[in-house]
């Protein structure tokens, strides 16, 4: 049956900014869907507020809307574009919820838009827990299957919750309906827990509904990925087993594919139930996942939940098996059946089959607790990880060890050096799920723990525990061997030990292990991910390393370029870098190179085997990269390796790769060093006559105080050995500086910089070919200096800089590019203070803002950069039309639209963490708002990031003394718009004196008034406030005002009320609210923006 011809245009909804629980896997799935739909001749309309996605590249859709994914904005898009159908199943929970809202408001009916992929009833049945339980019961009854649900009660009020918990018995699981990534869910062990967790859950659920459930903590946990077509053909794409048993969110669990501890009978029962459930739910076409818990002692199986859409697990399953779930789901949605779609990998067999694996896949989560001081680090049903790495090996130990080293985090791999801590302590720690629990357990084994003790502590299946014991035995065999013979080494490598680990165990250098290994001719082979365990020949080269028998790397004639990706998502290194890598791959392939991608992040577009000519799913360590390079050099000419697009991860390998004789293209490792090493960079700046803030280095308290005295407070301090703003602080006085220094690890130097208070911070992305500088874009931060550029909102073109300023910025950037010797991309951060342009730092690589700049200026910067790295000049790229014939991102016409980037912060995941922005980056993602006016663009960015700005109601204002003058004007604007202003005493006085009526509210530290007058925090918690303005003051560790602010901001997060923490942000918000109230907010596609820009002569 061919595709449907009754629909011609399809609206695809993306998933918006990267947040915990919804990351770039939806860019991967959405990109696949858009490609399929366009290839099939449909007009594709896309909405996604996240500019760092590949799917929002203008060539992936006919009309690309970088607009907020809210029912209001999407309805505007529908009204304008009039699509025939809406595909809501590929953009995560965000897309699904938006589709539900549009259905319920009648918008879909009004504009005659058909939901495809899953209809409204199916979405309800899958997402509504009561309906779903009924379905499971029906399936068990009518099909005679062994399936049940956990006993549970649906509650809509706290009283219902309390009654239900008494009936079920503690502990109970609390699950809010219609939230993603398990927001608001948790275990309540007693009534106090229940009040807290269920209270937040009722709030978090858009339907004020939570489910209380019997506890199945400690049971085995499984997931099946299912596809169904309109002929009711159903296949199971992949089974996934969680090593961490029930109780840890699957996104935070170490997982393995395929399931390894089920017999066929148990597995087939699970399969039968999954199929019966998907039929009963009525998911017509497409993918969904379904989760199970199995009691390890009795085999009793419980169906936990299903998602009637593509999920994070589907991305993992696609990468794990080579079965492209999202792509196939899109084809099924437009009418194809599974047997009509060819298997991409074999090309000869159809997609209506179930992949079989002859390898093991392990996924490990990556956390960022170091960024969120005060956050509870226990892993629960509430997802906390910010990224993940996946590895493939021919055995579980090989895959597990590769996955752990893919995390690129200190202490993520197993270790056999030093003495382990006491067994009892390690066993105790193992009881509580935490980041790195497997390593804690490995150490416990070293300390003498038995399998029984570990099982008792963790409930992890004995089979997995035995694999840890096996690794311990293998490590000891390596340690005890008289020498590293070929046999010893080969055995160890088969068990996934890295050269670095072996060196550690033997007390020798990693490089020596490698030399020895190479001298013995011991190298990994590369096997193909072929969906069929080698039963058929694979046509698509998707490879992984293993110490196995035969290498399957095909020989190629074309010159190859190897692109190193950015590894697991983490704060500061996310989808933006994947975007740059993917662009480079597309462009270099077009330019005639054979492109080879190396990466280990299963969520990304770069690890789609369709993106590059060849994909290696490998850790990004020196050893693993060198082996890939070697394998590629054996099978054809290699032009070079690109390290500057994947962020800090590949950049950190540049010098070692060069030392090993690998050609690194683009900016040379020596030049990278010039920009990264402080002294060398200082000389570059001196030569170019560019000022930097005064600075010094200190290792002791006394030294630091001396530096501070010389350069003057405030100072910005940070340890010299960390990147990405970790451990940074702004310090205003001697006492705080002494405390900070005392807390540093001994011996490590601390960098002390003059902090430019109230400077305007400016970010620049530029391209340099050795001759010409192309200024990609100049971004002006909305918040003043001191807030990490990744967390700061910014505007492009800059809203308060004149053409003279930009001229200076251009000259300075060119000076740095020349001085450093950049070939490709360069990012520079400046601070403009009292008319002086200071250079804060320069990074000779793709930056986080490259995709934003590319979308805002309609110029593919990363593609151009890749070409420059391989030798093209900017002049020739201008001739080709890849870059504009004249001008650049610094010469945008005055009519150009203004794009605002806003950061999205994960504070709702980490209750108890202060939400004040600072020099350490904590955002997980970003959105873009774009419009002709700054106010509207800013309002859109807020709507996309946090929800619509309120246009009426109460605003609560409490600002630091230094901000009191600056806040008057914007607060008056709010009052003029009709807001009732509440303020703490000091703030209210200033406002009243300036003619703004403000009601005084008690501070939290003052407590409730004699007549029971509530405090500011109480007002917020009671839902009486619609907008909060609170700028922090003082320094950490103080009580009083500082703590007041903390309580206010925490309350804001709890209630989900917009909270502005800078005056600059307040001014922008006031402008945005004014624009919304005036009602002149429209939607415009990127293609229209680009046409307008060209018409204006840019």
């Amino acid at each position: 049956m061919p595709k449907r011809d009754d629909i011609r245009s399809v609206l695809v909804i993306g998933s918006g900014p990267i947040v915990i629980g919804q990351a770039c896997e939806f860019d991967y799935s959405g990109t696949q869907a858009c490609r399929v739909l366009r290839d099939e001749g449909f007009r594709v309309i896309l909405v996604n507020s996240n500019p760092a996605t590949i799917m929002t590249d203008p060539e992936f859709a006919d009309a690309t809307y970088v607009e907020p994914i809210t029912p209001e904005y999407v309805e505007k898009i529908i009204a304008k574009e009039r699509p025939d159908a809406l595909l809501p199943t590929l953009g995560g929970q965000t897309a699904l919820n938006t589709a539900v809202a549009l259905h319920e408001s009648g918008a879909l009916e009004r504009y005659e838009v058909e939901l495809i992929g899953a209809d409204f009833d199916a979405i309800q049945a899958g997402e509504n827990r009561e309906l779903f339980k009924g379905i499971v019961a029906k399936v068990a009854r009518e099909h005679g299957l062994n399936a049940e649900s956990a006993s549970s009660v649906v509650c809509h009020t706290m009283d219902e919750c309390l009654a239900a918990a008494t009936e079920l018995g503690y502990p109970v699981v609390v699950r809010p309906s219609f939230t993603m990534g398990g927001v608001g869910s948790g275990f309540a062990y007693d009534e106090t827990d229940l009040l807290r967790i269920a209270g937040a859950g009722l709030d978090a659920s858009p339907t004020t509904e939570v489910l209380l459930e019997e506890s199945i903590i400690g049971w085995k946990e499984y997931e099946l990925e299912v596809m169904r077509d309109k002929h009711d053909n159903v296949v199971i794409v992949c089974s996934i087993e969680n090593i961490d048993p029930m109780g840890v969110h699957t996104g935070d669990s170490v997982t393995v594919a395929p399931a390894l501890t089920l017999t066929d009978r148990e597995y087939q029962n699970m399969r039968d139930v999954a199929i019966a459930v998907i039929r009963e739910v009525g998911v017509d076409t497409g993918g969904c996942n379904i989760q199970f818990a199995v009691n390890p002692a009795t085999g009793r199986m419980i169906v936990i939940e299903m998602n009637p859409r593509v999920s994070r697990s589907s991305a993992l399953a696609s990468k794990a098996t080579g079965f492209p779930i999202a792509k196939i789901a899109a084809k099924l949605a437009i009418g194809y059946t599974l047997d009509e779609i060819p298997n991409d990998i074999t090309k000869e067999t159809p997609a209506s089959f179930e992949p079989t694996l002859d390898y093991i896949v392990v996924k490990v989560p990556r956390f960022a607790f170091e960024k969120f001081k005060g956050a509870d680090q226990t892993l629960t049903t509430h997802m906390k990880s910010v990224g993940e790495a996946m590895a493939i090996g021919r055995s579980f130990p090989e895959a597990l060890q590769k996955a752990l080293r893919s995390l690129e985090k200190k202490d993520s791999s197993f270790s056999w050096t030093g003495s382990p801590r006491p067994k009892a302590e390690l066993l105790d720690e193992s009881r509580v799920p935490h980041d790195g629990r497997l390593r804690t357990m490995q150490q416990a084994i070293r300390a003498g723990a038995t399998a029984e003790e570990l099982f008792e502590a963790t409930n992890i299946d004995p089979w997995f525990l035995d694999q840890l014991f096996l690794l311990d035995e293998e490590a000891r065999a390596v340690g005890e061997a008289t020498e590293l013979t070929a046999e010893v080494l080969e055995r160890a490598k088969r068990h996934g030990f890295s050269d670095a680990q072996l060196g550690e165990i033997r007390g020798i250098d990693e490089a020596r292990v490698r030399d020895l290994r190479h001298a013995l001719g011991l190298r990994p082979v590369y096997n193909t991910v072929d969906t069929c365990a080698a039963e058929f020949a694979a046509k698509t080269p998707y490879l992984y390393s293993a110490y196995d028998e035969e290498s399957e790397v095909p020989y190629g004639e074309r010159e190859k370029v190897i692109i190193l990706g950015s590894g697991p998502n983490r704060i500061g290194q996310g989808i933006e870098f994947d975007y740059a890598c993917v662009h480079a791959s597309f462009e270099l392939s077009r330019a005639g190179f054979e492109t080879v991608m190396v990466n280990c992040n299963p969520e990304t577009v770069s690890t789609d085997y369709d993106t590059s000519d060849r994909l290696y799913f490998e850790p990004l360590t020196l050893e693993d990269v060198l082996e890939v390079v070697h394998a590629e050099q054996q099978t054809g000419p290699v032009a070079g390796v690109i390290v500057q697009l994947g962020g800090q991860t590949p950049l950190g390998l540049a010098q070692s790769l060069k030392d090993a004789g690998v050609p690194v293209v683009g900016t040379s490792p020596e030049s990278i060093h010039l920009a990264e090493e402080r002294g060398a960079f200082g000389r570059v700046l001196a030569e170019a006559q560019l000022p930097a803030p005064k600075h010094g280095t200190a290792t002791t308290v006394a030294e630091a105080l001396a530096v501070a005295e010389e350069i003057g407070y405030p100072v910005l301090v940070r340890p010299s050995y960390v990147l990405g703003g970790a451990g940074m602080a702004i310090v205003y006085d001697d006492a705080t500086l002494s405390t900070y220094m005392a807390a540093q690890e001994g011996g490590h130097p601390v960098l002390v910089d003059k902090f430019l208070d109230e400077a305007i911070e400016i970010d620049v992305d530029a391209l340099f070919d050795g001759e010409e500088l192309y200024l990609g874009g100049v971004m002006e931060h909305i918040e003043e200096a001191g807030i990490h550029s990744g967390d700061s909102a910014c505007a492009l073109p800059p809203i308060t800089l004149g053409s003279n300023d930009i001229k200076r910025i251009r000259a300075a950037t060119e000076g740095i590019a020349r001085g450093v010797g950049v070939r490709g991309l360069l990012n520079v951060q400046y601070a403009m203070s009292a008319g002086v342009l200071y250079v804060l730092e320069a990074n000779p690589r793709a930056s986080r803002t490259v995709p934003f700049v590319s979308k805002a200026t309609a110029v593919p910067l990363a593609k151009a950069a890749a070409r420059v790295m391989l030798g093209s000049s900017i002049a020739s790229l201008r001739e080709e039309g890849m870059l504009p014939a004249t001008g650049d991102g610094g010469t945008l016409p005055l009519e150009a639209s203004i794009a605002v980037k806003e950061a999205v912060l994960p504070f709702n995941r980490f209750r108890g963490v202060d939400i004040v922005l600072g020099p350490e980056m904590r955002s997980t993602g970003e959105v873009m708002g774009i419009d002709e006016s700054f106010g509207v663009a800013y309002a859109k960015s807020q709507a996309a990031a946090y929800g619509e700005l309120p246009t009426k109601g109460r605003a609560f204002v409490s600002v630091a003394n230094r901000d009191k003058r600056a806040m008057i004007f914007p607060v008056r604007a709010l009052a003029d718009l009709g807001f009732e202003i509440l303020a703490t005493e000091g703030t209210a006085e200033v406002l009243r004196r300036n003619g703004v009526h403000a009601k005084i509210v008690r501070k939290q530290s003052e407590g409730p008034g004699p007549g029971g007058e509530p405090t500011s925090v109480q007002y917020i918690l009671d839902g009486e406030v619609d907008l909060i303005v609170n700028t922090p003051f003082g320094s950490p560790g103080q009580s009083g005002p500082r703590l007041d602010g903390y309580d206010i901001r925490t309350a804001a997060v709890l209630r989900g009320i917009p909270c502005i923490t800078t005056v600059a942000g307040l001014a922008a918000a006031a402008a945005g609210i004014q624009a919304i109230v005036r009602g002149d907010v429209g939607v415009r596609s990127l293609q229209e923006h680009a046409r307008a820009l060209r018409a204006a002569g840019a």
Partner: protein
Amino acid sequence: MTSALLVLEDGRVFHGTPYGAEGETFGEMVFNTGMTGYQETLTDPSYHRQIVAMTAPHIGNTGVNDEDPESGRVWVAGYVVREPSRVVSNWRANRSLDDYLKEQGVVGIAMPGTRALTRHLRERGAMRAGIFTAPAEPVEDLVERVRQAPRMEGADLSAEVATTEPYVVPAIGEKRFTVAAVDLGIKGMTPHRMAERGCEVHVLPAGATFEQIMAVEPDGVFLSNGPGDPATVDVTPLRRVLEARVPFFGICFGNQIFGRALGLSTYKLRYGHRGVNQPVQDVRTGKVEISAHNHGFAVEAPLGEPFDTPYGRAEVSHVNLNDRCVEGLRLLDGRAFSVQYHPEAAAGPHDAAYLFDEFCEVMSRAQA
């Protein structure tokens, strides 16, 4: 650690360590791509005289239990795995796979090169092989001994695996039908699936004559799966069943015999289908079922159009979507049909279980 060798008749040798019983064994080298169900595979009589390599790397994790075997013993001639489990983890298990193989005297090898072996067989076809857990002779001599082992072509093996005495599997619940099932290597799940549907199954030895079959007064006749070359089987009893218009259903080897009874020929596939993920399309409905397979031979028949047979018009009812191989045959009047794969699905998915319902419907119509 002692070493073991897997030696192929074309001279390729794989190194590993002994697994299961020690000694040496010979057979046809085949690979199975199922990720679950090793216990069912080992006890499937169709694997008689075959050395089976598992493409899934970790085998034995869930140990061995008393509920899952498909027959009373392990039938594979030898077993090749990559990563044998060192522990048993399942609430139903009562011993380890290693112990079970030792107890059953099955010689095996654990070796890293199972993927290389699969690729080799895929390219060169199934061939004879030997496992030697303590090889004393030079490799060339071992290759020579492998070459002297009997080939699968022309092998008549049903009698070696089938029951020698008839027995009855009673219907579960109310008895609706009597089925005469000829055991050519039948799996335990097959009569069970029929019994679940109210069939009293009379399992007869492989050489059962038409008279012996009719003696149980069957509502339907069933021919099971089994090892060996279908060309060696006498199709006379089945032809007489068809002439008598008794409803017939066949599985696997039974499908091949049905094909030969209809006048079609059978041939050996290059490396066969062995696994639980094969897409088979029912040409009448267009629906695809994911099915369990274990066959090295197949029927040659025209796809897409009915053809004449001595028993009326017939058609290819099921086709494998991977290689367009014939997976099912039926007489257009519906009274006799067969499939090349395993609807009883042990191990494997249950998508094809409807075929047992169809058999019951055919018998039901015939009774009416």
